[in-house]
């Protein structure tokens, strides 16, 4: 029997397949593998951020700083490569380290000063955006042979599609995320904290340490997003990725993760991100609709999913309450 808590992720899968099926039925071009691989490439940055966000939301928290983090890391990376002349690999290593460290610091403040994640990461959101401007006010192109080589990597697939470097990076990070969530003690601790942090502490889960790790992980994933975004656009811009934190939260929730924590899957988040991409692609294929229709569809879906989750939770409660 399907566990009722797994219903949202099945709903997500069905919505994704229906949207994709509709596209294949309606448009000849949609049937090509190119559409799918483009989806992977174009939504890689959103999905990678959202994977980090999944851990945060699973633990019952929120991270509003990821959008700014993406911009900051991109600008930092461009600065290290173009102004300081660092090799891109070294620049990426430094940037990712900085992102993880900043995430960990937010985690420490949240866990040890017992502050709300919303406020702490809101502060982070402003700080990182400000830091990005501090480094550079304008858009900077990143012209380094290594970066160009990375963005030129392409594994052709049957049909016209193929996997780009960032699509493969995203898929790798997705697999790591899934393993981390379901097959490690850290992952189980995240679920436990989100389920009931008081009980988790009594069961011996190191709640504070795990919380720091969660935000460090979100910092790491959003820093990697910054790197991917910079490679994707071959440039860095302090105003990049404004509002991506909200898109990421939407992807996580549409992916079936409970906003109150404890229930959800990383793979669901992948589907949640892909659904947003499919809607955008469908609107592009249609041609007559404005791209803002994406927002309308995503908003509607989001509403549908939170109502679905609420319904399931209420139903489950009623079923198990003593009669």
């Amino acid at each position, binding site marked *: 029997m399907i*566990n009722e*808590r797994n219903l949202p992720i099945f709903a997500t899968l069905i919505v994704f397949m229906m949207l994709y099926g509709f596209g294949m039925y309606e448009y000849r071009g949609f049937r090509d593998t190119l559409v799918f691989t483009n989806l992977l490439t174009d939504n890689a940055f959103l999905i990678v951020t959202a994977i980090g966000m999944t851990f945060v939301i699973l633990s019952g928290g929120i991270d509003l700083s990821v959008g700014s983090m993406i911009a900051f890391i991109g600008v930092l990376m461009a600065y290290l490569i173009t102004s300081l002349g660092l090799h891109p690999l070294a620049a990426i290593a430094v940037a990712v380290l900085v992102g993880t460290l900043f995430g960990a610091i937010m985690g420490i403040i949240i866990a040890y000063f017992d502050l709300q994640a919303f406020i702490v990461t809101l502060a982070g959101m402003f700080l990182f955006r400000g830091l990005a401007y501090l480094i550079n006010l304008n858009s900077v192109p990143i012209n380094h042979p290594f970066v160009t080589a990375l963005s030129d990597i392409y594994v052709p697939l049957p049909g016209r599609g193929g996997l780009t470097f960032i699509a493969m990076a995203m898929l790798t990070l997705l697999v790591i995320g899934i*393993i981390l969530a*379901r*097959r*490690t*003690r850290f992952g*189980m*601790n995240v*679920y*436990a904290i*989100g*389920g*009931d942090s*008081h*009980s*988790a*502490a*009594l*069961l*011996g*889960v*190191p709640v504070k340490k795990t919380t720091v790790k969660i935000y460090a992980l979100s910092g790491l994933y959003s820093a990697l997003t910054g790197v991917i975004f910079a490679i994707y656009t071959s440039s860095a811009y302090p105003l990049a990725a404004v509002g991506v934190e909200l898109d990421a939260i939407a992807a996580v929730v549409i992916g079936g993760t*409970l906003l109150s924590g*404890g*229930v959800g899957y990383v793979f669901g988040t992948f589907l949640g991100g892909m659904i947003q991409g499919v809607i955008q692609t469908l609107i592009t294929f249609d041609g007559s609709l404005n791209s803002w229709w994406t927002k309308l569809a995503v908003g509607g879906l989001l509403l549908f999913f939170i109502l679905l989750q609420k319904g399931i939770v209420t139903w*489950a409660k009623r*079923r*198990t309450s*003593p*009669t």
Partner: protein
Amino acid sequence: MDLRAGEIRALLGENGAGKSTFIKVLTGVYERDQGTIHLDGQIIQAQDSGHAQRLGISTVYQEVNLIPSMSVTENLTLQQQDKTFGLISWKKAQKRAMALLAKVGLDIDPSKQLDSYSIAIQQLIAIARALSNDAKLLILDEPTASLDAGEIQQLFSLMKQLKEDGLGIIFVTHFLDQVYSITDSITVLRNGESIGTFDTAQLPRAELISHMVGKSLDDLAPASGQNRSQQPLETLLTIKNLGKQRFLQPIDLNIHAGEVVGLAGLLGSGRTEVCELAYGATKADQGETTLKGHVLTQGSLRSAIRTGMGYCPEDRKQDGIVAELSVRENMILALQASRGWWSPIPMVKQKELVEEMIKRLAIKTPDMDKPIGELSGGNQQKVILARWLITHPDLLILDEPTRGIDIGAHHEIIQIIQELCAQGMGLLVASSELEELVVFAHRVVVMKDRHKIAELDGEQVSEHAILQSIAS
């Protein structure tokens, strides 16, 4: 205190006696400032509950402290997963979970979510988890509070089996019947001190209760029944067969105008439950409440207030005051609620009412706009009383009205109760302090294990009689 392997020890005491503090020190949640704990002859010092578990002390709490949204397997193996190549192996975990469940005699599907099982099964799963790290000492903190009779028997047979396996068990409860049916010995705590440890078989029930409340039955001369047995006045409140499963056995109760009915009983006996059901703060699943001839809609507090009922809850901080609001705003709440939010009380009128109440109840506050949280406990309680008095209720339900307030205010509140009663109000007062109950109550309803076990009237009301009926 010593505990042998294979012994079941009851830990008893009234509210605030120090039971939970004792457990928390034992399991390392609180740091102790003196004394030592020996386990198997070795001095131990648990740093936190995780460490205590590794040392062999496991605790199961009344509220099942597992993660409801995770599967049974995940709950049982949290923090002690079996790994293959550094990753959790769910196959091994499942096997381990099955083995643990078998220990407590459960045959269930461990891949299902924890909250798809009943509280009783969750309780057993919690015990299975507690046993998973070779526990030598098992602490059960009020495990039976939310179980029904059959489930309790299931738990008891498990406890007996564990005892035979050589486990030491500390069993915290306030159900005396259960103490006598399962434990070997009893340790009584009172006011943070250990009163002594006794053999269960050799301690009569009456003696146990007098140890718990700190008074011997012989010390209490039957008090004189002054100001009692008046003419029966009109019936104000009639409770018929009111009850809720796992909460309170159905009870009948009448309260007349100008009468104080006391609710006595040990902690957990059902005093508060009666108050909550009578007022409607908890929805009853059977029976009905009639006030002045009107049958109250179950679960509608507004109808209760409008018909003329008032309720001062036991936990003043949590359920009574709104700490950030001023004395005036706190006092006006109930009246405003009964009028509905569309007809606000004019400020002038509010001030007039509040001024009058501050004078009448001698509430000590510099002004009526001071946040109520800054007042002393006794004055807070008076404000809560005033909140109801300005609605001119016919019936007031007071749950522990004198808890946690100083002696002076204590006395004043008792006076207020007597005055209100003289004015013709009906009052239902739950209290753990028998001496104050017998002063003002015309009748006393004695509760035990969520049953009404006796009703003492007029001359019969005395501390002695109340204790005797609890003990019987």
